[in-house]
């Protein structure tokens, strides 16, 4: 006999509201349906009522974790429509901010995953590390969540103390290499909760079009920082971690290795940070009529903005946002099929879902 068990929209395992209706035979999930939209804000439509300055502040609110990434993607699109090119220092600062955001996102996720595994001490350790990253973000931007860093043609603030970032990177690398990665990879609890659980096969990952760590953990080697470099990523040497197994453990490993790669990128960006201006000089600029596309590798995967403008218009005529969770989430249906009911909170969390982004 089948039972339908709802998880959400409000549930201890969910960080944000959405609903997963699971069809179960005993303890085994045979199918699932997903329902989103509980936080739908109509931001794409609101954007049509905002000017080029206001729309940056609006799109920063699409997501509370990768707020920098959203404004970066939007500003890159608007720069293509205005013909403004940010100076080299701005491009490097964008890389630094993007990688700091990836670090805090991945460490946050590791903490939440640890909590869902029943690993409360690890949760606290991860959040302690995350605080150090947040402190650096605050030192650079003055803010902890919405950084207000991006503008058309550059960034709003300089990185004044690169040495502080290096110090944090060293501490983080040490903690990751000596504590977090060994515990996640060797602990019996972590292994039993993650290995072979919530598998997304390589074939299914391709057919669902999943992105980011979710794709890379199913053996799909895609990363826009390498495949379609933006900002100053062309100048950075780094590896793209890929795992073939497609289970929760693979997703965990990919993110852990990505933290190490982000530290590597940060070191390079700081070492090579060019002198000069961090935004184009103040002055008049204008938009041309047309559509621009921009993509960025966010912590959860590819973000794409399609921005349309009409010459002399005050507001954009269309801003379409495709967030990573929007494509990763439907794959959860395939991940939970055949899984034990008790594993489903961790499985859905393993894609690092963001419903703020998805509902936008």
């Amino acid at each position, binding site marked *: 006999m089948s039972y339908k068990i709802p998880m959400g929209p409000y549930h201890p395992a969910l960080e944000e509201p959405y609903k997963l209706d699971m069809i179960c035979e005993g303890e085994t999930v045979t199918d699932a*349906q997903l*329902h*989103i*939209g509980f936080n*739908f804000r*109509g931001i794409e*439509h*609101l954007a*049509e*009522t905002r000017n080029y300055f206001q729309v940056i502040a609006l799109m920063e609110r699409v997501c509370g974790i990768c707020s920098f990434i959203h404004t970066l993607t939007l500003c*890159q*699109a608007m720069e*293509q*429509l205005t013909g403004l090119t940010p100076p080299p220092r701005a491009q490097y600062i964008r890389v630094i901010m993007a990688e700091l955001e990836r670090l805090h996102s991945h460490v946050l996720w590791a903490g939440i995953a640890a909590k869902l595994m029943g690993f409360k001490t690890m949760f606290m350790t991860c959040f302690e590390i995350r605080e150090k990253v947040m402190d650096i973000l605050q030192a650079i931007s003055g803010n902890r969540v919405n950084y207000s860093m991006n503008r058309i043609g550059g960034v709003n603030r300089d990185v004044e103390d690169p040495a502080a970032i290096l110090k944090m990177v060293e501490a983080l690398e040490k903690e990751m290499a000596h504590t977090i990665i060994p515990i996640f990879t060797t602990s019996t609890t972590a292994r039993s909760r993650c290995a072979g659980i919530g598998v997304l096969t390589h074939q299914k990952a*391709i*057919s*669902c*079009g999943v992105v980011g760590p979710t794709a890379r953990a199913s053996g799909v080697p*895609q990363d*826009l920082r390498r*495949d*379609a470099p933006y900002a100053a990523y062309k100048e950075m040497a780094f590896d793209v971690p890929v795992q073939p197994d497609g289970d929760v453990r693979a997703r965990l490993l990919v993110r852990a290795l990505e933290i190490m790669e982000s530290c590597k990128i940060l070191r390079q960006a700081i070492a090579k940070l060019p002198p000069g201006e961090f935004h184009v000089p103040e002055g008049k600029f204008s938009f041309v009529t*047309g*559509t*621009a*596309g*921009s*993509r960025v590798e966010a912590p959860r995967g*590819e973000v*794409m903005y*399609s921005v*349309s403008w009409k010459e002399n218009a005050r507001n954009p*005529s*269309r801003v*379409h946002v*495709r967030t990573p969770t*929007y*494509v990763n*989430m*439907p794959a959860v249906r395939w991940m939970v099929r055949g899984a034990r009911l008790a594993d489903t909170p961790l499985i859905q969390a393993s894609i690092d879902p963001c419903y703020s982004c998805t*509902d936008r």
Partner: protein
Amino acid sequence: MTMLETIREKLGVAGPWVEQRGVHWLDCTGVNVRTLAAAMNACGARFITITAYELPADTGFRMEYHWDLGGQLLGFALPLESKSIDSIYDLCEAADWIEREIHEEYTLDFAGRVYEPLLLREGNTPGVNLRETGASGKPASGLVGKQEVAR
């Protein structure tokens, strides 16, 4: 012959690819979207999204389909005079949610597919269009600002 030229040939499009503002565009007027999706599948491209634009003065819609091919962002613009276009969901699983979202926001029909319960809002009235509410500057009920909040 490059992969892009192979795609153009397969679709029977005479015009060239145009790289503009981050996107490689191919004008696909007259090409069926299912033929396009099949061609994209054949070359191993990854579906990204669909963007629907409502054209001014009720002249229809423009649909923009995006795929990624080895890091290149491909864009295909398809004009839409009626409010219906073929669904590619059966050819491209990743298009499911965005087709449902566009259906709900613009009442466009993606022919040949069944819609599951609404993605974004409760109720069975697709086309309670947010843009209309935004355009008039008034909330849906007709009340203004503080009255609406108080209510």
